[in-house]
């Protein structure tokens, strides 16, 4: 893409000296060299078309730009597919396979590769792939797709979303049980319906344990501004908050840095991570109290099983605590015994439907009013 841009610019420069053109050519050459190097690294990932065997289901997966071992969404999804493949005796490369996307421009090409190779189900992992899935799925109505963590409204796409509020509720309980100052914070990426689920679930969890606790809420208006994340965390810790729950992607990096800085100076502060177990991000100062995790691998495995049995339907499927879609991280070394007990109690209450976790601020107000009475 960049190359074409440069070439078009090159064409436009008519009046320039020959040296000027040489300069652009020089840049082009470097870009070209670089892209060749990239494509060489990826050339072994082409999908081979085998059409003889059609008895077992064929499953493809497209990563977003994070890569297959991003320790997050992509890796988790791939683990789920691998587990399914193992149980059903599929061979990698032939029956199931992934394609890495090294840039957003590759999403559509990668999806197309699976379509052309007649794969039965193609997983698109992450909300970033939504536009690509919408386009390719509409153009190929006979192929089936599944998108994780985003909704695509097409007859051949299954959308898997998460009941984030239930996971947020659980970490809210941990926050309230751990806080000594009775003040906790929530930092969100951008103000949206999705983020409101995190916010209201978290606050509901905190207030269920300690109705008098103060919950500071702030949005960074960015998922990639670490400097702002650190500044917000600094302000919140300055306001006596000792536990901050952050669901803001790259902005969260700054929150971790701020917490580590403070812990290194002897302050007793914690961060609660999101999407995956962020225990390692908190090291070496050990600032990660717990993390709200999404069971992407469970979800992918379940969808694959449904597809195998021919039961996979288009539309949106929501995965909550009950379905293993959300939960609390496996690393529990910073959480006390009685907190773990409380988590189990509330987990049961949510699964049985005794507690319905609020998804919006309005629901939260109702929930809090019911708590008081």
């Amino acid at each position, binding site marked *: 893409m960049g190359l074409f841009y440069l070439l078009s610019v090159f064409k436009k420069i008519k009046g320039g000296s020959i040296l000027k053109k040489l*300069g652009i050519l020089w840049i082009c050459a470097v870009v070209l060299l670089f892209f060749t190097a990239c494509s060489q690294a990826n050339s072994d990932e082409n999908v081979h078309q085998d059409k003889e065997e059609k008895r077992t289901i064929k499953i493809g997966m497209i990563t977003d730009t994070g890569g297959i071992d991003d320790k997050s969404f992509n890796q988790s999804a791939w683990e789920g597919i691998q587990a399914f493949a193992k149980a059903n005796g599929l061979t990698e490369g032939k029956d199931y396979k992934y394609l890495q996307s090294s840039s957003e421009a590759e999403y559509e090409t990668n999806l197309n590769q699976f379509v052309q190779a007649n794969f039965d189900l193609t997983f698109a992992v992450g909300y970033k792939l939504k536009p690509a899935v919408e386009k390719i799925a509409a153009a190929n109505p006979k192929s089936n797709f599944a998108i994780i963590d985003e909704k695509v409204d097409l007859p051949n796409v299954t959308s898997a979303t998460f009941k984030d509020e239930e996971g947020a509720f659980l970490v809210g309980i941990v926050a309230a049980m751990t806080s000594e100052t009775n003040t906790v914070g929530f930092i969100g990426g951008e103000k949206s319906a999705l983020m409101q689920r995190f916010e209201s679930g978290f606050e509901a969890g905190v207030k269920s344990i300690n109705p008098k606790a103060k919950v500071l809420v702030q949005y960074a208006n960015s998922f990639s501004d670490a400097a702002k994340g650190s500044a917000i965390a600094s302000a919140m810790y300055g306001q006596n908050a000792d536990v901050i729950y952050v669901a803001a992607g790259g902005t969260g990096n700054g929150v971790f840095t701020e917490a580590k800085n403070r812990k290194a100076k002897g302050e007793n502060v914690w961060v609660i991570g999101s999407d995956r177990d962020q225990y390692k991000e908190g090291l070496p100062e050990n600032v990660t109290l717990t993390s709200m995790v999404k069971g992407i691998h469970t979800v992918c495995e379940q969808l694959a099983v449904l597809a195998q049995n021919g039961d996979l339907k288009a539309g949106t499927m929501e995965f909550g605590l009950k379905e293993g879609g959300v939960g609390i991280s496996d690393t529990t070394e910073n959480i006390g015994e009685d907190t773990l007990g409380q988590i189990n109690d509330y987990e049961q209450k949510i699964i049985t439907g005794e507690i319905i976790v609020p998804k919006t601020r309005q629901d939260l107000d109702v929930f809090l009013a019911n708590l008081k009475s």
Partner: protein
Amino acid sequence: MTIDLLSTVTSATLYSAAPLIFAALGGIFSERSGVIQIGLEGFMVFGAFSGIVTTLLLEEQLGVVTPWFALLLSAIVCGLFSLLHATAAITFKADQVVTGVAVNMIALGLSLFLVKQIFSGKGQTDFISYRLNKIDVPFLSDIPVIGPLFFTSVPWTSYLAVFLAFFVWIVMTRTIFGLRLRAVGEHPGAADTVGINVVRMRYMGVILSGVFAGVGGAVFALSISGNFSTITIAGQGFLALAAMIFGKWHPLGTLLAALFFGFAQALSISGPYIPFIQDLPSVVLTILPYILTLVALTGFSRRSAAPGALGQAYDKESR
């Protein structure tokens, strides 16, 4: 209580402005010599990349000094990287905006590619264990009022940035090198006539901008984000460019502009906890940094002070 809040605002200002100051000072070197520096963003990306990779690879051997060593190495690496821009823009006289944009694209693609090569396919690096931590300056932090405001919870690099702004100011206005650099940027033909090597001065300007912006990127990664991914540097280079223009290509003006950007944001973040300000609707606080910047730009930047020959390749024959 009030002093605590103010201290949060001032330390956040110094903390987040440091990378901008470094990069914007770099921009001054290049643009004062007459070469437009859109590539600041790219140099910052590459600086952040080399800073984090160096730290990750060497922190076991070197321990606490690793980030400082990484800072130094980023400066050298980005100095070399900027030769790409210099060769295209000065020797080959290519359009400087185009080459700058190319630098930005190459830096982002190349660093992601290298991360994947070095860390076996991962799209982002692990977190570093040794950072450029926020510190309380010994003795100075004990001074009442001034101590908590300016000398607590700020990393050393922020003071280095402020110091360098003054240093660059002296270099630009009080040394032969600075005079020649500015001459080359204002009127390269005249400079050439009196025997200044225009090409060499411009090369130095671009290389220095690479060095400074590289350090800026590394400071951001090592003191704020803690790891490297494609979103680590997202627009800071352009913000630095804006700070430089806002500061009228003057080192101290640029310093103030960068601090002002940081202050506006810190104020909007701490706003909900400050009496009076917290009564304002939250949308006012969110747009505050942009409003303040707009007001400042329209109020103070009436007369543009761009170097005379900015963006013009120097052609000896056309003198």
